[in-house]
C-alpha cells in the first residue's frame, strides 16, 4: 500500500492548478499532472524546470543552416560548377544570395523535425509505446495530480488530506 502512487482526481483546471500550487509549496514533489488539454500556469504551479527544447531547436536549426551551406557548395560550386544567374563566377561567396533560400528552408525543416522528434523521444512516444495514462477520464474532462508518497517527507494521510482540502473529487491508488 505504501509504495502505491496517489492519483488525486479534479474536475476543474483552475482547482487543479491551485491544488498543485498548494502541495508544491508545502514541499511535496508532484510527479506529473494528466490533463485533456494544456493547462495554463500548471508548469509554474508545480515548479517544473524550464523546457530546454529551445536549445534543441537552435542546435537543429544551426545544423540545417550549415548542412545547406555545405550542400549548395558541394553541389553547385565543387562537384558540378553552375553558372548562377548568368554570373559564371563559380565562387560560393559571390553566389551566396541564391543559396540563402535553400539555407533558410533547411533551417526550418531541420529545426521543426528535430524539435518534434526530440519531443517524441524524450516523452517516450514511439510507435508501439504503451499507454501510460492511469485513468482514461483524463482524456475527457478530468485532471489528475500524481504523487509518489514514498519519496515525500510528509505522511501519506497528510498528503491525501491536503489534496482533498484543495478540492479533489476522489483519490485513487495505483502502481
Amino acid at each position, binding site marked *: 500500500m505504501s509504495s502505491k502512487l496517489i492519483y488525486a482526481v479534479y474536475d476543474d483546471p483552475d482547482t487543479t492548478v491551485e491544488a498543485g500550487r498548494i502541495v508544491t509549496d508545502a514541499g511535496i514533489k508532484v510527479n506529473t499532472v494528466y490533463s485533456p488539454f494544456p493547462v495554463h500556469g500548471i508548469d509554474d504551479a508545480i515548479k517544473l524546470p524550464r523546457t530546454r527544447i529551445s536549445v534543441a531547436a537552435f542546435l537543429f536549426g544551426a545544423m540545417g543552416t550549415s548542412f545547406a551551406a555545405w550542400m549548395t557548395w558541394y553541389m553547385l560550386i565543387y562537384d558540378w560548377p553552375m553558372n548562377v*544567374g548568368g554570373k559564371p563566377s563559380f565562387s560560393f561567396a559571390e553566389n551566396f544570395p541564391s543559396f540563402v533560400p535553400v539555407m533558410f528552408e533547411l533551417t526550418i525543416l531541420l529545426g521543426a523535425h528535430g524539435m518534434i522528434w526530440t519531443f517524441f523521444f524524450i516523452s517516450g512516444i514511439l510507435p508501439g509505446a504503451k499507454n501510460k495514462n492511469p485513468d482514461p477520464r483524463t482524456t475527457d474532462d478530468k485532471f489528475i495530480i500524481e504523487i509518489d508518497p514514498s519519496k515525500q517527507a510528509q505522511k501519506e494521510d497528510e498528503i491525501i488530506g491536503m489534496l482533498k482540502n484543495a478540492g479533489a473529487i476522489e483519490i485513487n491508488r495505483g502502481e
Partner: protein
Amino acid sequence: MKYEFSGKLKIASIAATVIGLVLILVSFFIYGDNITRVWANLLVTSFFFTGVAVAGIFFVAVNLVGEGGWYTVFKRIPEAMSTFLPFGMFFLLIVVVAGMLGAHDIYKWMNPEIVAQDELIQGKSGYLNNTFFLIRFAFYAAIWIGFAFMLRKMSLRDDMLGTYEHYIKSRNRAATFLVLFAVTSSTSAWDFIMSVDVHWFSTLFGWYTFAGYFVSAIAIMLVIVLHLKRNGFMPTVNMSHIQDLGKFLFAFSIFWTYLYFSQFLLIWYADMPEEIVYYIERYDTSYRPWVLVMVVLNLVLPLLVLMTRDSKRNATTLTIISLLVVAGHYMDLFQMVMPGAVGEKWGWSFPEIGALLFFAGLFTFVVLNTLTKAAVEPAKGTFLEESKHHAI
C-alpha cells in the same frame, strides 16, 4: 496615474530640437552648393518619424480588429506616438513644396527641364506630377491624422464608458483604417521614397518601407514602456507584455529582412540594367560600409540577441537593442534616399546630425507631452482585465 514629463528629459528633448534646428539652418548656409543634401536629410528624418507615428495607429488598429486584449494596459503609448503625425507631415509637406518650387532636386520629376528631356519620366508623368502628388498628400494627411485622432479619442472615451458596444464601434473604425492604410502605406512609400530614384521601381517597395518603420515603432514603443515602467507609471505592465513586445521586435526584424532580401535577390539574380543600377549605386560606391552596418543592426543583432527568453525579459538588453534597431532603420531609410538624391556627395556632419537631433527631440517632446494629458493606464475597457493578467 498621469505621466510626469520630468525636467531632465524635457530639457534634453527641447535642447535637441533647438540644437537640431540651429544645425539645419547653419547647414543651409554652409552647404549652399549642395543644398539638396540638407533637404534630403529633412526628407529622411521627417518621413522616418511620420512612419513611426502612423505605425503607432496601425498597431492599435490591428489589435482592435484582431480583438487582441494583451496590449490594453500600454495602449496609450502607441496612441501618443500617433499624435506626432501632424508635425511629421507638416515638415514632409515643406520638403515636398520646396521641391516643387525648385529649392532642391531630390525629386527629378518635379523639374520640368529634366522631364522634357526624359522619355521615361514622361511616361510616368500621369502619376508623378505636382498636382496629383499634392492631392495624394492631402489624402494621406486626412486619413492618417483623422484616424489617429479619432481612434485616440474613442480610446479615451472607453475610459469612461468601457462598454462592449463602444469597443465594437472603435473596432469597425479601425477596420476601415486598415483597408485604407493597406493602399496608402504602399503608395506613400512610392511617392516619398521610391520616386527619388525615378527611373527605378520595385513592386514590394511599399511593404519594405512599411516593415522598416513598423519595426522602429515597436522598438520605440518598447523603449517608452520600459522607461515608464522603470519610473513606476505602469504598475500593471508585467514581464509578459515586455517579452511579447520583444517577440514583435524579433519577428518583424526578420520580416523586414525577408522583404529587403526578396527585393534584392530577384534584382540581383535577373541582373537587368534598369533594375540592378539601384544596387550598384549602393553596393559598389562609398555607401557599401553604411549598407553592411545597416544589415548587421537590423538583422544579425536582433536575431542573435533577442532569440533567448532571458534577453527578452531584461530591460537593459531590450533598451539597447531597441535603440540600435531604430538607428539601423534610420540608416536603412538614409540609404534608400541619399544615393538617388545626392549620389556620392553625401557625408555625416551638420545636416545629418541636425535633422536627426531636431526630429528625435521633437518626437520625444510631442509623444511624452501627449502622455501627460491622460492617465497612462486605462480605467475601463473590454479587455482591460485580460490584459492585466496577461501571462505567457
